[in-house]
């Protein structure tokens, strides 16, 4: 694919739930092979943007292009083929608790009959090692894992089929700072190794600087800033800087009932 065409292109993406407008014309380009971090407060529309790109939510209006192709114009099979190249790490892991870890990790490969169950065990051990987990973890149930281990298994599941786009939904939420840094390091390593395009949503600024090449901030359903992730905290944009520094005073006012 040409370097001029963004891997993912959003134009005028809008979505409302009843009277509540969540996305109000989101425009965003995500460069191929780069890591984009989408920042924003709770309820700002980050997760809905991600779910629209993944096809889990149908937007009310707007354009979503992946590799220059409008996903809305794709047939079901074409859309499934696009999804085959996508991996996703969910905020709470979303591991299947009825399956052991190794089946979770190789779920996509098994579902698509790309691998036998015997080979899947070996493959799972290999991928678990890439996220710093022992092969013996493969035989455990997700309920037996700590939060950090669940994130790592979720990451292993996201990368097992070697996708070229990976989404990370709040990858460090609920983890202690050290485990958060470990997960961020694993994300950077995995994305680099696969040469994938990564899209992460987070409100953890340390995590955003560690995993992002580019960053964008969504506020009230619109992208209000985009730039290099390294400049976060000193962007000159009052909204972004207040958010990055976690300041109470500024243009972003929390709606608190007194």
């Amino acid at each position, binding site marked *: 694919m040409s370097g001029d065409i963004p891997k993912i292109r959003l134009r005028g993406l809008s979505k409302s739930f009843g009277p509540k407008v969540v996305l109000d014309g989101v425009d965003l380009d995500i460069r191929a092979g780069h890591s984009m971090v989408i920042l924003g407060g709770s309820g700002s529309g980050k997760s809905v943007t991600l*779910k629209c790109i*993944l*096809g*889990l939510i149908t937007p009310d209006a707007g354009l979503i292009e992946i590799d220059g192709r409008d996903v809305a114009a794709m047939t079901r099979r074409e859309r*499934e083929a696009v*999804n*085959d190249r*996508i*991996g*996703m790490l*969910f*905020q*709470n892991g*979303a*591991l*299947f*608790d*009825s399956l052991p870890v190794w089946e979770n990790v190789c*779920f*996509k490969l098994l*579902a*698509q*009959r790309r691998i036998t169950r015997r080979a899947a065990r070996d493959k799972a051990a290999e991928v678990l090692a890439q996220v710093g987990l022992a092969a013996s973890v493969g035989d455990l149930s997700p309920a037996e894992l700590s939060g950090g281990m669940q994130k790592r298994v979720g990451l292993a*599941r996201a990368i097992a089929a070697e996708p070229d786009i990976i*989404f990370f939904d709040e990858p460090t939420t609920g983890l202690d700072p050290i485990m958060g840094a470990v997960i961020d390091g694993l994300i950077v390593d995995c994305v680099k190794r696969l040469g994938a395009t990564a899209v992460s949503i987070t409100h953890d600024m340390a995590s955003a600087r560690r995993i992002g090449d580019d960053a964008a901030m969504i506020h009230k359903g619109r992208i209000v800033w985009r730039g290099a992730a390294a400049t976060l905290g000193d962007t000159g944009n009052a909204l972004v800087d207040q958010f990055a520094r976690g300041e109470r005073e500024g243009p972003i006012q929390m709606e608190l009932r007194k």
Partner: protein
Amino acid sequence: MDRALDLTAGLGRFVLAMLRGAGAVALFAAEAISHLVRPPFYGRLFLKAFVEIAWFSLPVVALTAVFTGMVLALQSYTGFARFNAEGAVANVVVLSITRELGPVLAGLMVAGRIGAAFAAEIGTMRVTDQIDALTTLSTNPMKYLVAPRLLAGTIALPLLVVVANTLGVMGGWIIGTQQLGFASGAYLKATFDFLQAWDVISGLIKAAVFGFIVTLMGCWCGYNSGGGAQGVGRATTAAVVSSSILILASDYLLTAVMFSR
């Protein structure tokens, strides 16, 4: 006048909501059925659901059937004794069990066990993003979660009803011979002399329909649950209540169709 209009509008909204719900369930069922004839097929998941429904429901269905047969023998004996028709006990027991009580009671028991379990499991998967995760892992949730369960329920319940019928008749035979003084051979002869193949087959057809209803409502309520733990609880309750009502309503319809002359 305004009050009457308000009542009419409320009634209209209720009817429209019912129709919308029925349509949505019908579309859900149609999509699930369409996945039964389109590959890939998840045989392992079908077997798992089948064992869960048929094998693990066996104790509760068996106990219900035995006690129902016993009660039926006692009740019909004391009732028929008023007009000297005690000899009809065996016939009443076998016809009641095979035509009605076997399938209906097994259906209600399975609704309580399986309908609730499916709604809770799928509902929990919904609220913990596991269903979204299936989609991102190139797996259709309807094909993976709903279609195998629907097929398993439709096949498993008739098999459970065969067991329930046998044990129900046996319960009546135990009471008839041990407590009511019937000779064993005479009781069994009376049982099988009056039994026709259609009595059993009609019950098995009902059971297949009830199995479909129970699994469909369990999956539907779970699939559309929301609102965290409370939402899953509501989905579980709704699955049991709706499938129980639908079992009784469809039992009337099926009886009217199959036994109207």
